[in-house]
C-alpha cells in the first residue's frame, strides 16, 4: 500500500501538493525551520530558507487564485471533521494576509543575506534562519487557522521566535536584549489574555472552531462570560497589534532587532494580529451587539485617533531612524484601527487596504534603512546626510516609500488614506478626518527630515575631497525596488487588494445589512 502510493507517478505528487496547499503553506516553513538549523553554514541555510518560503509563496498564490474565483478553501487537519479536529479556512480576508506574509518573508530573505552576514555571528546564522522560518510559519498559521485555540499555539510559535530574533540584535547593540525582554513580558501577557478569552468562550460554547463558536453565540442572549471573553481577547490581540496605549514594546523591538527582522516584523507581525482582531470582532463575536458597538465608538476609535496624532508627534522627535519608523508604525496601526472602528463595510475595507499598503511602504523603508546601516552605519538621521550622493539608489527608494507613507498621490498610501477619509465622512466622523489630515502633516514633517538629510546636505568626503561611493548588494536592491514599484503599482491598479478587502468586508459586515 505504501509503495503503491509512493511509487505512482509524480503527477499525483503534484496533485497532493495542490490539494494540501492550505496545510503545506504553513507546514513547509515550519518543518523547514527545524531543517535549516541543521545546515551548518549560513549561506546554505539561507538558500534553504528561500526555497521553503518560495514554496509557501507559490502555494499562497495558488490559493489566492482560487479565492479570487469565489472559492473558500477548507482543510481538516488529520482528516477529523469540525468541530472534533482543527480546520484551516482560507477566504478573501486571510488569503490576502497569507500572500502578504509569504511575499514579505521572501523579499526579506532576498534583501537580508548581506545584513545577516554583517550582523549575526557566523556560527549562529543557520539557527537564525531556522528561527526566522519558524516565525514565518507561526504568522502564516495564525492567519490560516479557523480554530481559536490553534490561533494561540501559532501565536506562541511566532511570538517566541520573534523574541529570539529581536534579541539577536544584541551583537550590534546590547539594548536589543532589554527590548526583547520587554516584548517578551508584554507579549506573554497578551497571549495569556487571549487564551483566557478563548477559555471563557469554550466554557460557554463547548467548541473551539470559530464559525461554530459564532453560530452558538448567535443563539445566545447577553452573557457576562461572553463579555469578559470579548474584553480579554481584544486586549490580548490589542497588545500584539500595538494598539495605543499597548504599543510600548514596539519601538525598541523594531529599532534594535537585526535589519532583516525589523523589516519583516514591521511589515507583517502587527498586521497578522490585526487580522485576528478583525476576525474575532466581526466573525466570532456578534457584530451589532451593544458592547461591541460601544467598544468601537468609545475605546477603539478614540485610541486609534490618539495613536495617529501622539505617535506621529513622537516619531517627529526621534533622532534614531528606526525608532522614528517604529513610532510611525504605531500611528499607522491607528489608521487601520480607525477603519475597523467605523464598523461599516467601507471603513473595514479601507482599513484592510491600508494594512496591505502599509506593509509595502514600511517594508521598503526598513529595507532602505537596513541598506544604509550596512553601507554607512546609519543609525541616526544626522548620519543619513548626503545619502542621495553616496547611495543614490537606496536614497531614491527610501524617498518613494516615504512619499507613500505621507500619502502623496501616485503612491499606494494615497489610495488607502483616500478611502479612509471617504468612509469616515460617510459616518459623519469629521473629527477623524481632521485627525487623518493632522497625522499626515506630521508624516510630511518626519519623512521630510529624512529626505532633507539625504538630499540637501553634503555627504562625508574623503581626504582628497571626492565623494565616497558605497556599494549596495544587488539582490538587496532588487528586493527593495520590488517593494518600491509595488508602492507605485498599487496606486494605479489597487484592484487586487481592494477587491479582496471589499469582498472580505462585505462578507463580514454585509450580512448584518448595514
Amino acid at each position, binding site marked *: *500500500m505504501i509503495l503503491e*502510493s509512493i511509487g505512482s507517478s509524480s503527477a*499525483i*505528487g503534484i496533485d*497532493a501538493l495542490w490539494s*494540501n496547499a492550505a*496545510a*503545506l503553506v504553513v*507546514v513547509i516553513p*515550519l*518543518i523547514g*525551520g*527545524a*531543517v535549516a*538549523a*541543521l545546515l551548518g553554514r549560513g549561506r546554505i541555510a539561507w538558500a534553504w530558507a528561500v526555497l521553503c518560503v518560495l514554496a509557501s509563496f507559490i502555494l499562497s498564490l495558488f490559493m489566492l487564485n482560487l479565492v479570487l474565483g469565489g472559492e473558500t478553501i477548507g482543510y481538516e*487537519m*488529520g*482528516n*477529523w471533521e469540525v*468541530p*472534533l*479536529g482543527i480546520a484551516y479556512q482560507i477566504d478573501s480576508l486571510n488569503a490576502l494576509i497569507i500572500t502578504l506574509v509569504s511575499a514579505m518573508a521572501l523579499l526579506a530573505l532576498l534583501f537580508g543575506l548581506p545584513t545577516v552576514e554583517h550582523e549575526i*555571528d557566523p*556560527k*549562529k546564522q543557520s*539557527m*537564525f534562519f531556522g*528561527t526566522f522560518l*519558524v516565525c514565518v*510559519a507561526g504568522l502564516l498559521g495564525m492567519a490560516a487557522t479557523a480554530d481559536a*485555540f*490553534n490561533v494561540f*499555539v*501559532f501565536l*506562541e*510559535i511566532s511570538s*517566541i*521566535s520573534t523574541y*529570539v530574533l529581536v*534579541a*539577536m540584535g*544584541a*551583537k550590534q547593540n546590547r539594548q536589543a*536584549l532589554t527590548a526583547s525582554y520587554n516584548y517578551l513580558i508584554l507579549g506573554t501577557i497578551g497571549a495569556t*489574555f487571549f487564551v483566557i478569552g478563548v477559555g471563557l468562550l*469554550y*466554557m*460557554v*460554547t*463547548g*467548541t*473551539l472552531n470559530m464559525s461554530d463558536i459564532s453560530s452558538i453565540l448567535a443563539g445566545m442572549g447577553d*452573557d*457576562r*462570560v461572553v*463579555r*469578559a*471573553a470579548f*474584553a480579554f481577547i481584544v486586549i490580548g490581540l490589542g497588545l500584539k497589534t500595538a494598539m495605543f496605549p499597548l504599543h510600548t514594546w514596539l519601538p525598541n523591538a523594531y529599532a534594535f532587532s537585526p535589519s532583516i527582522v525589523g523589516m519583516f516584523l514591521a511589515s507583517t507581525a502587527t498586521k497578522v494580529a490585526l487580522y485576528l482582531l478583525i476576525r474575532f470582532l466581526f466573525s466570532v463575536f456578534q457584530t451589532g451587539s451593544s458592547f461591541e458597538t460601544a467598544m468601537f465608538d468609545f475605546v477603539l476609535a478614540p485610541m486609534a485617533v490618539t495613536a495617529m496624532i501622539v505617535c506621529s508627534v513622537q516619531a517627529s522627535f526621534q533622532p534614531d531612524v528606526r525608532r522614528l519608523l517604529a513610532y510611525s508604525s504605531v500611528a499607522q496601526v491607528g489608521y487601520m484601527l480607525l477603519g475597523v472602528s467605523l464598523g461599516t463595510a467601507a471603513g473595514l475595507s479601507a482599513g484592510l487596504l491600508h494594512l496591505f499598503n502599509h506593509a509595502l511602504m514600511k517594508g521598503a523603508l526598513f529595507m532602505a534603512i537596513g541598506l544604509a546601516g550596512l553601507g554607512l552605519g546609519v543609525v541616526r538621521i544626522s548620519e543619513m546626510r548626503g545619502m542621495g550622493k553616496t547611495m543614490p539608489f537606496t536614497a531614491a527608494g527610501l524617498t518613494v516609500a516615504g512619499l507613500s507613507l505621507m500619502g502623496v498621490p501616485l503612491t499606494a498610501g494615497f489610495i488607502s488614506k483616500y478611502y479612509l477619509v471617504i468612509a469616515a465622512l460617510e459616518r459623519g466622523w469629521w473629527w477623524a478626518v481632521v485627525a487623518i489630515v493632522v497625522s499626515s502633516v506630521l508624516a510630511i514633517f518626519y519623512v521630510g527630515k529624512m529626505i532633507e538629510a539625504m538630499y540637501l546636505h553634503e555627504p562625508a568626503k574623503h581626504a582628497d575631497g571626492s565623494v565616497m561611493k558605497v556599494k549596495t548588494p544587488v539582490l538587496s536592491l532588487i528586493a527593495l525596488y520590488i517593494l518600491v514599484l509595488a508602492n507605485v503599482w498599487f496606486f494605479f491598479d489597487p484592484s487586487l487588494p481592494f477587491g479582496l478587502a471589499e469582498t472580505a468586508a462585505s462578507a463580514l459586515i454585509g450580512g448584518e445589512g448595514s
Partner: protein
Amino acid sequence: MEMSFPVDMNLPINLFTILDMILLSMLVVVAIAIVRLNNLFSVVMLFGVYSLLAATWFVSLDAVDVAFTEAAVGAGISTVLMLGAMLLTSRRALPTTPLRHWTALLVVTATGVALFYATYDMPMFGDANSPANSYVGLEYMTRTITDISVPNVVTAVLASYRGFDTFGEVVVVLTAGFGVMLILGIDGTKPGSENSEPAGKKEKPAKNSSVASEAIKSPSNHHVVLGVIAKMLIPLIVVYALYVHFHGDYGPGGGFQAGVIFASAVILYSLIFGMAETRRALPPALVRFCSILGVLIYGGLGLVTIIMGGKFLDYNMLDTHDTIHAQHVGILIIELGVLVTVAGVMLSIYYGFAGRYRDLKDQNW
C-alpha cells in the same frame, strides 16, 4: 436549559470542596509570598511549591494528565532551570520603586474584577450539562473508543483529534531551545569568548567544551554517598520515563512528561558527576540534533500521510485496513517525536546555562 446543582444538597459542604478551598488559599498565600520576597532562591523554591500545589489541585479536579505535566515541568525541571539562571545572575532582586507595583496592582485588579464579573453567568462547577461537558467534550468521550480505541481520552485528543496543536507545541518547545542556544551560545561557550572575537571563530566546539569543563569542577570526589545513590537512581528514572512514555495511551503520561523526566535524569547525573562527564556521555551536538529530530519525526509523519494520499497527520493512512491500528502507530510515532524534542531542548537549555558558570562551588548549591 435547566440548572442542576452537582453538589449533593444534603451535605452542607462537599469534602472535595473543602480540599479545593484549602489548596486554593495555599496557592494565594504562596503567590503573595513570591511577590513580596526579594531573595531569588526562595522565590524559585516557592515557584516549585506553587506548581506542586497546583498539581495537587488538578488531581482533585480529576485532571490527572495536566497535574502530571505541572508536577514534572513546573515543580521539576523549571525549578532546576530557574536555579541555573539564578546562578548566572544574583541571589537577590533589586528593590523596585513602589509606583511600578501600584500600576501592576491596578492591572491585576482589573483582570480579577473582569473574571469575577464573568463568574455570575458561568456554568456551575462540575455541571454535566455545561457546554464544555456536553458538546465536543462529550463527543470525544463517546467516539474515542470507536475511532482510536485508547483508554486515555486525553491522549486521543492531544495526539490525534487535535494532534496539529501538539505539533505546534513541540515547535514552540524547539523554538525556546533555539532561543537559549542563540542567546547563550550554541555549545555552551563561555561568556566573553563570543563578544571578544565576533567573526571568523575557527576553533572547534570540542575545544570549547573542554575549556568549559575545566571551569566546572566535578565535585564527585567528596560526594561518595551522593554518587552511589545517583548511580542507582538514574537508571530507574530513565526506566520510569520510558514507562510514562509508553503508558500514555492507558493512563496519565506521554511524550512531554517522559521527555522532562529523562532530561532530569541527565541533569541529576551532571550535578553529581560534573558537566565534563555529562558532555562526554551526551555531547551538546547530539543533544541539539535530538531536539530538532523530534520535530522532524512529528512533522515527517504528517508529510508521509500527505504523500500516501491523506491529509496532514491523518494517521488512518498508515494502515487503511485497520484504522485503529493505524491510529495507535501514529500516536506512538508522534509521541516519540515529542519525547525526543522535549528531552533534547531541556538538555540544550541546561547545557546553555551550565556552559556559562565560571566556577560552581559547593556552597552555591
